Structure formats: structure tokens, C-alpha cells
């Protein structure tokens, strides 16, 4: 059932994008990507226990000597044991990613998704990564943060020839550290990362008791510039991005992080955007327990509620979920929690416009014209609620609906849901928090 649902969505979004963009990378490639999704992802994942969102697959724990991570709106790459070597296959290819319901983007990714699947292995493993390039241009993969033979580092031109379209290269090395790492191209990086080529690489400690947590979430920060009404990110953009994403999803399309009260929780965040992101969590105090350089000694950790994730870095934060409720978890740069918005739109704060409404409406075709911006931008959410029309494939600047009304967020925002009765290992969304009587701010 879940297989089908995922499969269906992949095909549906592929068809949509192909219809809108006749000649970008070709419909057949999109279709191909969709088929690849079904074959590679799901047939090889043994009995996925739950699908939390259209694209979250929980890797089964069975038979593994580690506690798998949960990739927000993502999945972990299956492997085959070949004479003691864990063999992973990665296909670099154009893919279609749904960023939130109502919006799809033509990305480049791996094995049918962007970001690509999370690679999970264990310290000391011998791994083989077979990389096939089905992009229209050459690529390589760099294993960010891993200690490995120089020739396996994946820097095009420096340590290996670029992998040309149609070619397959093999990387093989032994994992000497544990911690949180990434993979991404080191060939035409500006374009390939702007198009969403990236993934997480988790190396679990050999001793599963070391750094053990109950729930282990991970995701990558990526930014895109998809102009309103278009489907393909502009790879030449340097600062003016309009989609700020967790794993190439934007609120309200990002999975909540569901935990059981009392759980020890780790959240691993990698940053492959071109700016830093102060990631802030409500309701708890956490500490930074690791970076892409490894684990932070317990004695060196300090308490935080906001961790700044520098460009090209990873921060792991850990906390014990002591406080029940729905806790906001987001980037603290306010424009990173907004969907696409105009640059240089006139500032209408405090400017009366309503009396001109009729005059302006008379001049325009038959759609409802509303004066906006007098009180602020919150009207935007009201309009979104009223189902206002936007350019095709464009998300509202502010959106999301909570139990008390509009949440007015887009982009890098999600919720940590702490529930005392959440079953162990269950990531299913429990719905909105049921506040104990007298524990909600009220009007006086």
C-alpha cells in the first residue's frame, strides 16, 4: 500500500513537470527517475515499517547492529554484502522533487530523489560505492568529512577524472571514524549543488552503546532559487534564493520530528547552502554533540537553544525530550521561514488603500483584487486561507495551519512533537498537542 502511494506520487509529479517544461531534461528521464524510485528504493528496502509522509521511509532495524537514523522526508540506501564489503549503488540523475504539496521542482539528485538517500554504515566497515552518472554533464562524489585514501576523495581533476555522462566509477575504502558526514559533487559544484545533489553519510560507532540515543533524525539544509511560475532552480543564483529547505522540503511539507517523552534525541543538520543558519529549538535546552569533524567530548559541550550551522558544516544537537507539546524548530533568519516573496515590493505599512480598491478593481480582469501590506504581511496568510490564486507551481510566502490558526511560516520550519504515550520506535504523527487545562495563553 505504502509502496504504491510513493510510486504514484513520483510518477504524478514527473508528469506534471514534464507537461510544464517541454524541453528541460526530457520527459523520458523523469519517467525513468520515477521507475528507478520504485525499483531501487522500495524493492530493496525490506518491509519498511512506516511511511510518515509521501517520502519518508523508515529503514528497518532488523538485523542491524546500529540504531538507524530517520531522514526527514527521505530514506536510507540499501546495500548488498559482497565478500565482506558493503556495496552501495548511487545513480546521479535528474529527478523531480515535491517541495510541498502544490509545488514540484526539477532537481538533480541520486536514485530518484533529491537529496539522495542517506548512506548508513558502521565504523570499520569496508564499503564500495558504485556511482553511475546519468546527468547531462560530468560529475564526481566527494565524501565530505571522511578520512580516506586521497584518490577516493572525489575531487574532479585533482584526485580523479570527472565521471562523464554514462560512465560508472567505483569508490572503495574502509570507514575509520564514526559520526555525521555528507556526500556531494566536487565537479561543477555551483550548479550541481544548486540543483540539489547531496546526501547524508552516517557512520555509526562500532560499539552501539556509544553515543546511543532513542531517536536519531537527520537532514540537510539546501537553498534554491525557483522563480515564481517556473520549475527549475536557477543555478547561477548566489544570494537571492527563495526556497529554504530541510532535505529539499519546505514547511508545511516537512515531516515533524515525533518523539516519546523522555527520549534522548539527536538531530543531525548539514548545511550545503551558501549562508549560515541559526537553527533554533523551542521548549528544550540542547547541546552540540558533534560536527562533521566528529563527536564533541562531553566535557566540551555547552547548553544552547540555537545552534548556528556554518556553511559546509554539520552540527549534531542532543537533548532529552522532557517537555510535552508541539515545539517549533526552525532557522532563526526570518526570511528563511518564508516562501517565495518579491524583492523590492513597495512598503505599504501604514498606507491606507481600501478606498482605492474599487477604482483598481474596475481596471483589472475578473479576479478579486485586495489591498495588501497596510498592516504587515500577515494578510498574505489570510489570502492563502481564502484560496487566492498564485503563479503556477508557486507556494505562498506564508502558510501552514495550526490548531489555533495560521502558522504563517514557509521554508525552514518544522515541529518537534513530544508525547508521553508515543510508542517506542513509532514516528507516526500524533496530531496537534492536547494542552492540559489552563496551560494555554488566553485573551484577558
Amino acid at each position, binding site marked *: 500500500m505504502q509502496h504504491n502511494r510513493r510510486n504514484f506520487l513520483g510518477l504524478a509529479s514527473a508528469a506534471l513537470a514534464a507537461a510544464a517544461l517541454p524541453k528541460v531534461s526530457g520527459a523520458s528521464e523523469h519517467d525513468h527517475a520515477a521507475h528507478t524510485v520504485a525499483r531501487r528504493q522500495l524493492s530493496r528496502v525490506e518491509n519498511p515499517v512506516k511511511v510518515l509522509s509521501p517520502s519518508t521511509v523508515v529503514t528497518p532495524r532488523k538485523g542491524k547492529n546500529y540504531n538507524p537514523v530517520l531522514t526527514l522526508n527521505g530514506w536510507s540506501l540499501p546495500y548488498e554484502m559482497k565478500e565482506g564489503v558493503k556495496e552501495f549503488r548511487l545513480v546521479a540523475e535528474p529527478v523531480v522533487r515535491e517541495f510541498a504539496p502544490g509545488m514540484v521542482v526539477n532537481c538533480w539528485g541520486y536514485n530518484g530523489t533529491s537529496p539522495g538517500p542517506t548512506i548508513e554504515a558502521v565504523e570499520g566497515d569496508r564499503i564500495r560505492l558504485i556511482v553511475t552518472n546519468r546527468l547531462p554533464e560530468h560529475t564526481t562524489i566527494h565524501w565530505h568529512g571522511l578520512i580516506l585514501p586521497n584518490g577516493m576523495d572525489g575531487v574532479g581533476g585533482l584526485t580523479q577524472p570527472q565521471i562523464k555522462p554514462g560512465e560508472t566509477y567505483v569508490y572503495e575504502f574502509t570507514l575509520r571514524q564514526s559520526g555525521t558526514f555528507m556526500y556531494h559533487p566536487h565537479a561543477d559544484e555551483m550548479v550541481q549543488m544548486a540543483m540539489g545533489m547531496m546526501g547524508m553519510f552516517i557512520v555509526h560507532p562500532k560499539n552501539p552503546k556509544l553515543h546511543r540515543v532513542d531517536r536519531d533524525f537527520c537532514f540537510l539544509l539546501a537553498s534554491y532559487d525557483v522563480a*515564481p*511560475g517556473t520549475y527549475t532552480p536557477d543555478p547561477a543564483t548566489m544570494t537571492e534564493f527563495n526556497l529554504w529547505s530541510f532535505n529539499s522540503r519546505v514547511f508545511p511539507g516537512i515531516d515533524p520530528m515525533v518523539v516519546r517523552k523522555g527520549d534522548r534525541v539527536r538531530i543531525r543538520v548539514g548545511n550545503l547552502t551558501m549562508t549560515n543558519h541559526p537553527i533554533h529549538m523551542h521548549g528544550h535546552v540542547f547541546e552540540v554533540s558533534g560536527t562533521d569533524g566528529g563527536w564533541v567530548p562531553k566535557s566540551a559541550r555547552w547548553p544552547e537553544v540555537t545552534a548556528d550551522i556554518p556553511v559546509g558544516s554539520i552540527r549534531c544537537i542532543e537533548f532529552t525530550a522532557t517537555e510535552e507539546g508541539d515545539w517549533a524548530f526552525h532557522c532563526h533568519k526570518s526570511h528563511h521561514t518564508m516562501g*517565495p*516573496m*518579491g524583492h*523590492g*515590493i*513597495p*512598503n*505599504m*505599512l*501604514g*498606507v*491606507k*488603500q481600501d478606498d*482605492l480598491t474599487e*477604482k*483598481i478593481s*474596475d*481596471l*483589472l*480582469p475578473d*479576479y478579486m*483584487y*485586495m*489591498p*495588501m*501590506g497596510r498592516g504587515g*504581511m500577515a494578510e*498574505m496568510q489570510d*489570502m492563502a486561507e481564502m484560496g*487566492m*490564486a*498564485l*503563479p503556477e507551481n*508557486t507556494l*505562498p*510566502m506564508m502558510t501552514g495551519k495550526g490548531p489555533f490558526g495560521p502558522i504563517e511560516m514557509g521554508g525552514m520550519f518544522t515541529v518537534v512533537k513530544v508525547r508521553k504515550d508515543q510508542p517506542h520506535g513509532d514516528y507516526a504523527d500524533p496530531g496537534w498537542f492536547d494542552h492540559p487545562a489552563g496551560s494555554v495563553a488566553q485573551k484577558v
Partner: protein
Amino acid sequence: MKTWPAICVAAVLGLSGCSVPGKEGVFRSLNEGMGSNLVWIKNEKEAAAVEQNVTAILARPLEREDAVRIALINNRSLQQTYEEIGIAHADLVQAGLMSNPVLGYSVGRGGGVTTKKVGIELAFLDLLWIPLRRELAGIALEETKARIADEVLQAVRDTRKAYVDAYTAETIARFQDEQLSSASASAQLAVRQYTAGNLSKRDMLRMRAEYSRARIDALAARQAASDAREELNKRMGVYGHFTDYRMAETERSLLAPPVSSEDLERESIRRRFDIAAARKKLEFAARAAGMVESTRLLDELSLEYENERSTGEARFNTLGVKIPLPLFDVGQGRVESAKAEYNQAYHALYALSVNVRSDVRRAYAALRYRYDIAAEYRNALSGIHREVLEETGLYYNGMLEGIYALLEERRRYGEIQIGSVEAAGEYEKARIDLAYALGSPMEDADAAQ
């Protein structure tokens, strides 16, 4: 011999009195030939009837062909032209009349004798020349009729074009008002934004300047509209309260023009009234030259009858003939002049035909291009710009663009609407020009294609 004069006079009277159709009949045949319904005002009663008719037409919104109708019955310059039929007709009547006989009476006295002479001199050959002269006058009347028909068609063309111009100018003025409305909304918002401290004075002033420019454009459009309307008023020959009519708002259809101009040239030569007039002129010159040739020696021949009576003597009747002796003037001058006039008429017809053919080709080419331009506006550009405007509305909804961008796009759309109306007008005028070039009478002016 007593009865001679009487016979002569009777014969002449008989000839000149023979059936020439009345000028009313000529005007009727002009109307029939053109398939039109002209009215020739000749007295107060007819003038009143026309005024009533004009009042009735102007009571409802004015269509293009209504304007033509009014011009044909009410434009006094045209009425003035109609009178030429009267003149040509009078010439025809005149041509049928014999010169009056000259009566002479003389009394002579001498030696107690009184001699009284009564004589009648008759330009006798008139009797022979009258049919010839009448034929010439008939041709001249035909020529006049054709020339008037052409002038009527010119009036039809000019009135139709004046209507199109007036209609277009009025529509454009309305669109310019919308442009002004958009610019005014922008300017009002800018002033408020400035007052709220959100916009620099410089940017606010720029918005106000733009509004000012839009106002100038709107005023100029109004002036152009009133100008074009006055032209139409002149064509229809109306003044006073008659000028308060409303123009009908009709959806103009774009009829595809014919694919080739070749048949049209032949058609125009066959149909045009100015060509017909030139043909008649040539025919007249030919006949006139022939007449000069046959009368060159004899046209001053006269017949004389004299009755002489002297006191105490019997009456003495004399019958005589006077013939000029062609010793010096054998009519060479007149013959040469008539030949030159013939040649002139021939070249005039030739030149006119060449020009008409060129006019038809030019009008045809103009129609094709004007059609393509107007069709591009109507079938593509207007729709596309409207969609752009609608899409811009979506950008505005999403706060991806501001209100000024939306209003600006509205103005760009307005510019296309204005361009489209202008193009439709130019196309319609090209059709009208081609219809005239083809010499199409009233009904098939539009079907001429």
C-alpha cells in the same frame, strides 16, 4: 410659298419638343444605376422631409451606414453637385431648340415711293444639326451623371472614413481615461506612501509626474475625438442639436480580404464611375469632332425669305440663301482643335485607367497588411497581454510583485487596447478605400470583396 415659314417653324417646334426625359427622371436613373437612395432637395417641402428623416435616424445610436445615409440626403455640398444634373439637363433641352428666326422689317422712301420689306431669316441648317447637337448634349448629360455618381461614392467613402475615425478616436479617449485612472491610483498611493514615511520624495514626485503625463495623454485623446467628430458632422451636414447623437458600439468583424488583386483591377475598370465619365467625355469628343467635320463649311448657311412691297406696285417675294464662301476660313482651326480635344480625352481616359489600376493595387495591398496587423492584435496580442495582466495579478496576490507593478502592467495592457482599436480602424478604412477604388455602389461596398 406663303406657308414656308409656317412649315419651317412648325418643323422646328416639332423637333425641339420631342421627348427629352425630365431631370427628375435623370436623377432617378442615377439612383438606380448606383443602387442608392439619394434625395435631391429642390424646395422647402423636400427640405423639411429630409430634416425629419435625419431627426429619426439620429434618435438611435448612430451606425456607420446611418451616417452615410444622412450625408447623402443632407450634405449641402452634395446637393450642390446634384444641381449639375439640372444644368446638364437644361443644356440638353437647349440643344434641341432651333435658333430663333430673325424677323426683319424695313421701310424705304424715295421719289414718293415707299417700299416696305418684311423678311424672315432662319438658320435653316439647324434643322439638320439639331439631332447631332442633342446627341452631344445627351452624352454630356451621361458624363455628368457618371461624374456625380463618382462624387457620391467619394462622399460615401469620406463619410465612412470620418465615422471610423470618430468612432476610433472616441474609443481611444475612453481607454486613455482608464490609463489615467491607473496612473491616478499609482500617484495617490505614492503620495500616501510618502506621507507614511515609506517612499522618498523623489520617487513620489516621479509617480506624480507620470500621472500628469497620463492626464495630458487623456486630454489630447479627448481633443482628437472632438476633432474627428466634427469632421463627421461636416460630412453629414449637421449642426446644432443634431450633433448630440451617440455612436453605436458595435463589434467590428474582421473579414478576410480576397487572396489576389488581379480580378479587382478589371472589376474597377468596369465599374468605376469616373472611368465611365471619362469614356463619355471621349465619346463626346469623338462626336464633336465628327460634327465639326461635317459642318465645317455649312454651319453658317441660312435661309432668307423676304416680302417686299413698294407703293403702287405688286408685292415682291424673294427667297434667298446665304452661304459663306470658304475662301479664307475652311474650318481648319476648329477641326484641329476638335481633334486635339479628342486626343486629350483619349489620353485622360488612359491616364485615369492606369491610375485607377494602381489605386486598386495599392488599396488591396493596404487592406492585406492592415488586415494582418489588425488580426494579429485581435487574435494574439490583445489576448496575450490580457493573460500577462492576469498572471501579474497572481504575482501581486503572492506578494511577489507590488501594486505599482500591477498598475503598470494594466497600463501596458491599455496601450495594446489602444493599438488594437487603431489597427481595427485602419483596417476598416482600408476596406472603405478599396470599395471606392473598385467603384462599388452602396450595397455591395462591403461585399465588393
